[in-house]
Structures are given as structure tokens and as C-alpha cells.
């Protein structure tokens, strides 16, 4: 427990070292999450639209004389 406390204290500079790592984690984590969400959304919307277009084309072809 003391070793853990010593590690977290960072020789008295814990108040500067840990926020530095925290900011990096928040910014990089945020960029990762927004990027992945953006990719998931756009690909889902694209496949949905492509599907509906494919089905509307086949229905047009089916109804043609």
C-alpha cells in the first residue's frame, strides 16, 4: 500500500503528472470514440440506403411488363 501511495505521489509532483496523463487519455479516448461512432453510423446508413435502393429497383423491374 505504501509503495502504491509512493507511486501515486510521484515524489510530490502527482498533482502535475497525473493530470497530464489524464488529459492525454481523455483527448485520445475521445478522438477514438467519435471516430468509431462516425464510421459505424455512416456505414450503417450507407448499407441501409443501398439495400432500400436495390429493393426498389427490383420492384420496378418486377412490375415492368
Amino acid at each position, binding site marked *: 500500500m505504501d509503495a502504491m501511495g509512493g507511486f501515486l505521489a*510521484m515524489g510530490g509532483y502527482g498533482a502535475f503528472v497525473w493530470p*497530464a*496523463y489524464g488529459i492525454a487519455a481523455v483527448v*485520445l479516448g475521445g478522438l477514438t470514440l467519435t*471516430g468509431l461512432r462516425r464510421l459505424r453510423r*455512416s456505414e450503417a446508413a450507407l448499407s441501409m440506403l443501398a439495400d432500400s435502393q436495390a429493393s426498389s429497383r427490383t420492384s420496378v423491374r418486377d412490375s415492368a411488363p
Partner: protein
Amino acid sequence: MLHRFANPTRFLRVAAALQPWCVGLSLACLAGGLYLGLLRSPADYQQGDTVRIMYVHVPSAWMALFVYANMAIASAVALIWKHPLADILAKNCAPLGAGFTLIALATGSLWGKPMWGTWWVWDARLTSVLILFFLYLGHMALVNAFDDPSRGARAGAVLALVGSVNLPIIKFSVDWWNTLHQPASVLRIGGPAIHSAMLTPLLMMGVAFTLLFVALLLVNVRAEIAERKLRGLRLARAAEV
């Protein structure tokens, strides 16, 4: 429309294959770099444990410059050869570069307070990096400010190229002007002036950040290509109706 995306289609295949490797290697280097940097590397004889801020500060500052250089090269390619993929690359570099620059500025401030006695000084290094941050934000705003995306891309490319004059200013600011900021200790003539116990985790974090940038760029470019296809399909559908 199809041949316009012929190259991006090949790009998408390569991107999807590369992405897991980038993420895996990045996480491995990140774990190694954090372990060595936080637990195994020594405290500095002058700076004590604040030197551990270096392992996030320096790699993110490298990335701030590296991402901008990528953005400027992609912008030049976009202007000269009018390749749509180059525009997409440049556009999606900007938010990532802004993120790395923000980390460099904030962690530098947290390092400056205990070591210099101040959060901020208006010296050449800090000011030129702040300008870099505003160049990224300006690029993001400008690219999205036009109804016609291609006009926004062209304006953004010109801004990125003009702003690239800032890169050598940042790199050599610590040599050209008096500053509190220490001079280069890794990328310098005569080799790194830093012990391998600190250099190894620093370089591992550098590799981790670089691969993370590549992975995030691939994710965002794939998303942007999907969004553009979506816009194209919607326009085509609206024209049919």
C-alpha cells in the same frame, strides 16, 4: 461517379486490412511505454518525477508537427493533382492534429508550473505551438464553411500550405530565440542527449502515438468516404423522383 471512387475503393480495402495491425501495435507500444516510463525509468536528477510528463508531452508535440506535415503534403497533392482522396486525408488530419497539439500545450503547462514556476510564457516555442493549434482549428472551420465542399477543400489546402511555414519556426524556435523551453534532446546533431532508460519509453510512446494517429486517420477517412457515397446516392435518388 464510379470511377471517381475507383481509387478510394482500393484504399478502403487496404485501410480495413491495416487498421487492426495499427491498433494492436499501438496498444502494445503504449503498454510498454507506460510501464517503462511510469515504473521503470528513473526520476530526473534535476526535475524529479515531473520528467515523466515528458512521455506524453514530447510524443504529442512530435505528432502535432508530424500530422501538420502530413496535412500540408496531402493539401499540395490535392491542389496539384486534384485527387479527391488527398482532400479527404487533409480534412481528417486537422481534428487529430488539433487533439495532439492540445495535449502538448496542456501537458507542457502542467510541466512548466513546477519546473519554471509558471503555467505559460509568451516565448517563441510556446507561442508558435499555440499558433499551430489555431491553424488546425482554422482549417477545420474553413473547410466546412462553404456550401460546395470542393471550394472548402481548396481554401483549406491553401491555408495548410501557407501555415506550413510555422513548422520550421516551431522546430528551431528553441535555438533561434531565448526561451525557458529546453532545446532538442532527441532529434539533434550528435545524437540523443538522453539516457536509454528514458529514451526507450519515449520512443515507444512516440511509435504508439504515430500508429494511433494512422489508425484514427483510417477510421475517419473510411467514414468520410461512406458519407460522401451516401450524399451521392441521396442526390441521385432525389434526381430520380
